Structures are given as C-alpha cells and as structure tokens.
C-alpha cells in the first residue's frame, strides 16, 4: 500500500474509534464454574423437585418400611432414622423423609427469597434511579419535595435498624404469612438496594456522555433507559447475587426462630429448627438442610466473587462494606 493510497482513504483516520465498545467477556475461574454448576442444580430442583421426591413433604413414613428382616420388632421407630435405602437422607423428628422435604423445601426457600429479592430490586432501583436523576415533585413550578433528600433520610433510618429486629417487630404485630414475609423482606432489603442504585446512578449522571446527551436535547426517560440503566446493569446484577444470599439467610433465620414459613410446609430454615433436638442422637436431619442452604449461598458468593475480581475488584470493595 503506497503513501498516497493511505492518505486518500478517508475512513482510515477513524480506525481507532470503534463505533461500539467491545463486549466484555467474563471468563470464570474454576470456583466460579463450580458455583454455576451448583446453582443450576438447585434451579433444576426448584422446578422438578416435588415431582421426583420419593414421598410427599408432609407424609409420615409407614413403620413397616423400617422393619428389619429377621427381627422381632414389629413397630420400629420412624423418627430420626439414619440414612438407608428406604430414606436416603434419613427421617426427621416426626418420621418424615428428609430428602423429600429438602426437595419440596427448595421451592419454598428459594422461591420466597427470589421473589423477595426481585421485589427489593423493583422498589430499590426505581426509587434509587429516580433519586439519582434528581426527580422533584412540583406544584405550579415550585418544588414541594426533593425526592432524593426525602428518600435518603427515610433510607438512613431504615438502614439503622438491624433487619432482623424490623422483621421481628413486624411479625409480632402482623403474624407470619408467606405474602407478608415476601413484602417485609422486599421492603427491608430495598433500603440497601436503593443506596447502591442511587450512588451508581449518580456516578453515571455526572459523566460526559450524559452531559452530551442532555446537550443533544434528549429527554429524561431516554437518558434513564439508554444511558443510565445499561451502565449500572452489570454492577447491579452482581449485587443482586449478593443480596439474594442475604435474603436467603434472613428468611432462613426467621424460619429458624419459628417466625418464618409455618408448618406443615417444609422450608430449609424451619427444618433445621424442628430437627435440632435430633442433634444429641447424632441425627443428620438438622445438618442436611443447613448444608443445603450453605451450598446455595456459598455457590452464589463464589460466582459474585469471581465476577467482581474480573471487573477490577471495585465491586468487591463495595460489597464488604
């Protein structure tokens, strides 16, 4: 290629300015891949769990199942049985199959936590972005309430109550039902989502490209959907994983205290609680549901950790505080 050709090619000088940023690719390390595998496993269980369970969650096992051939014992105990071929993970304090209850409980525990986290995100992100773009309630040109100030004050107060205390007070007043549990958890965790969405949104709002969009005359809605949301989506998605873990732990803790999901529905937190007395007999019944929760939460955390390590650790910093 000669010098003249080069200088005559008009597109040449724009080569270094690609029209779209290259797509960020995230390669997970082995810990992230294990995390994904475990998460996918539980997701499948949520869908098909109840249909592959050997028994129903509230079904008491027949004594005849436990009769050892050749022994005189006609009516053996069915509670706190060790794992065997009849009950793969042992039986619980009322003689129900632990494995079946885990399979049914996956839907309850993961379902409630997931819906509650989504609710927290809907509330938190909507209000957080609205606060970040400086939305004002106006009446005839006068600002009545500045959304950012009002929400931030309320949020500070909500965040300065330990979430478990707020949960306990509300449940004491209203009793415990599943819809209440979801709404309560959603509101409690919306506070921290709000804080993150607001600070992320504010970061984007002062950037040059938003400035450029404004000068171009774009409207608020356009700026929110085309500039802000795409730029906060990735950090928020990672934060979603972490928030999901906390919601699972929160709901399990409430169930463990006997204030969350009520019997006879099976839920991992309450399964630990009701089988706690079996611990002294060396029963695995209280341990299996705790391990189920642990595998789920640890795997989500491993994925989040892996992704945040690849995006420069900025997220990791925000998350531990």
């Amino acid at each position, binding site marked *: 290629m000669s010098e003249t050709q080069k200088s005559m090619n008009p597109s040449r000088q724009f080569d270094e300015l690609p029209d779209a940023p290259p797509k960020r690719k995230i390669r997970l390390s082995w810990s992230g891949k294990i995390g994904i595998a475990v998460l996918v496993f539980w997701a499948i269980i949520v869908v098909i769990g109840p249909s592959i369970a050997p028994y129903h969650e509230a079904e008491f096992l027949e004594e005849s199942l436990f009769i050892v051939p050749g022994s005189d014992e006609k009516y053996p105990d069915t509670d706190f049985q060790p794992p065997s071929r009849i009950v793969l993970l042992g039986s619980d304090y009322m003689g129900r199959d632990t494995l079946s209850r885990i399979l049914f409980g996956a839907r309850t525990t993961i379902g409630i936590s997931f819906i509650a986290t989504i609710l927290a995100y809907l509330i938190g992100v909507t209000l957080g972005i609205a606060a970040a773009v400086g939305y004002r309630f106006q009446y005839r040109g006068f600002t009545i309430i500045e959304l950012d100030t009002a929400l931030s004050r309320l949020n500070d107060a909500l965040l300065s109550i330990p979430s478990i205390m707020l949960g*306990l007070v509300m449940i*004491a007043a209203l009793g415990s039902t599943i819809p209440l549990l979801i709404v309560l958890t959603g509101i409690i965790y919306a506070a921290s989502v709000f804080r993150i969405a607001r600070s992320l949104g504010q970061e984007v709002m002062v950037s040059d490209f938003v400035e450029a969009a404004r000068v171009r005359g774009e409207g608020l809605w356009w700026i929110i959907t085309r500039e802000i949301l795409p730029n906060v989506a990735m950090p928020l998605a990672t934060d979603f994983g972490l928030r999901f873990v906390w919601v699972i732990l929160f709901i*399990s803790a409430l169930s463990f205290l006997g204030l969350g999901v009520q019997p006879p529905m099976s839920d991992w937190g309450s399964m630990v609680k009701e089988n706690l007395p079996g611990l002294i007999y060396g029963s695995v019944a209280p341990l299996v549901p705790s391990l189920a929760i642990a595998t789920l939460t640890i795997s989500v955390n491993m994925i989040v950790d892996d992704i945040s390590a690849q995006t420069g650790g900025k997220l990791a910093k925000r998350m531990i505080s």
Partner: protein
Amino acid sequence: MIWRALLGRFSISVVTLFVVSVLIFIGTNLLPGDVAQILLGQMATPDSLAALQAKLGMDQPGYVRYFMWLRDVATGDLGFSKAGLGAGNATPIVQIIEPRIYNTLQLTSMVAVVAIPVALFLGLLAAMHPGTRLDRTITFSTLNLISVPDFLVATFLVLVFAVYLGWLPSIAYLRGDETGWGLIRALTMPTLTLMIIVSAQIIRMTRATVLNVMSSPYVEMAILKGVPRRRIILRHALLNAIGPIVNVIALNLAWLVGGVVIVEQIFAYPGLAKLMIDAVLVRDLPLVQACAMIFCASYVVLIFVADMASILSNPRLRHPK
C-alpha cells in the same frame, strides 16, 4: 471545626433514633391486631374489652399514645409486660429485662474481648502477604463463613464439641449461681459461635482496609525510597488504617445484634434476644417494643462510634459538604 462535625453527626444519630422509635411504635401499636382481644380471648364481653382497652390507654389517638410512650421510656418506665396483665398481676418490664441485659452484655463483651484481637491479627496477616497461599486460604474460608447461616456454625459446633467429643454442654442455660469454671463452660459454645461469625467479617474488612492503604501513593513512595517492608506496614500503613479499622470493629459489634438473636435461641441462653423472640411468639407487644428499642439504640450508638472514629482519624471528613 471538629466539634461542628461531631455535633452534626450526633444530631443525625438523635434524629435517627427518633425515627426508629416512631417505626417501632407504628409496628407494635398502630397495626391491626388488638392486644386486649388477644389477652381476653374470643369469649370476652364487649364491656370488659372496653375496660381493658381504656386501662391500656388504647382508646387514645395514635400520636398521643406515641408521646405518652416516649415520655415513659425517657423516664425509665418501660411499662408492663402484657403477660398476666388481664389477671391483674402484671410484671414491670424493667424487672424482667434487667437480668437479661446483664447476661447479653456478658456474652457479647466476652466475644468482643476474644474475637477482635484474633480477627485483627488474621486480617493483618492476610494483608501483609497478599496473593500467597495463606492469604487465599484466609480469604476463601472467611468468604464461606459469611455466606453460611449462623445456625449452621452453631449446629456444627454442637455436633463436634457436645455430641462427639462430649466436652461441653449443648445448651447454655444459666441458673444464676454459676461461678468460675461452670460459667466458662456454659458460655464457651455461644461465644465460640459468635466469635466465628463476627471475626470472618472483621478479617475481610481489615484486609481490604489495609490493602487499600497499601496501594496509596505515600506507601508507593516509601517502597521506592527503600523503606523495609515491615516498617512500611507498621509505621506508614497501620497508623493510617487505625481509623478505618476502629470503624470496622464498631460496625461488627453492631452486627453482633443480629447474630446474638440466633445464638441465644440455639443455646437457650437467657439473654435479651431470647426474651424478645419469646415475646414475639406470644405477641407480648410492650416487651417486644422495649427489647427492640434497646437493640436499636445500641446499634445506633455503635454506628455513631464507628462514624466518630473515621471523622477523628481522617481530617478530610471533618468538613461535611
């Protein structure tokens, strides 16, 4: 100038506490659920119901009751427990709460005294050798510890120390006359559990804080001019990290509030949190109110101390924007 910053922060705490008290009051008083009805049962006559409502001050409008309650709390009168109120032998809440506060303080101070030095040491150790196998081990295990439910740690410890080894009792019931060895034996398991939960957080945050300081320009300068590594960490980095670390400690002591609820329940430890759970279960709302106020107040105070530490250690924060 510094006084102005401190005073500003102090007034924020007072406002927060006020908002918290309103939220707790709304939660326990204004929501549906008639306490008089619960106390007297379904068979109560309308007359006796109205009489008890008047006795409880429930015929007054909400805001009047709020200020009456606030005045009583401020003068140290926490009211009467609803248990036994209908029968005429109500117990003052102060009397119920006092020994419980003492027990909880005993537990948490023991945790603080043991956990903080250990956690700080491990966090510093990880930060001094970033990327090594030691650091990775510490980071990975603390990540797993913060993502498992508190009760898994507790159940696991009970299984090992009480069931298999038989060294320690599996519950921590105090009769009140334990001394020396007996008291230590009873307290060991709950303390150990809380220690593990709290130190995982402190370790992670200490590591992040010190690493953050280590990447600052003046440490880079010190490295370039050939200051020995030990001296950099102890003289340059650590002194600058003290403020953030005190902040970390105060924040984690505040998180003890959440952990203590689970741990006291598992080990049947007669502390304030156990009292509150029991009160929630029988819907003894004045008692729930009093306990929640105490927990939230201590939480707000600890957060205040945390902010104080960062303001005092970092002159740039003394001028609030």
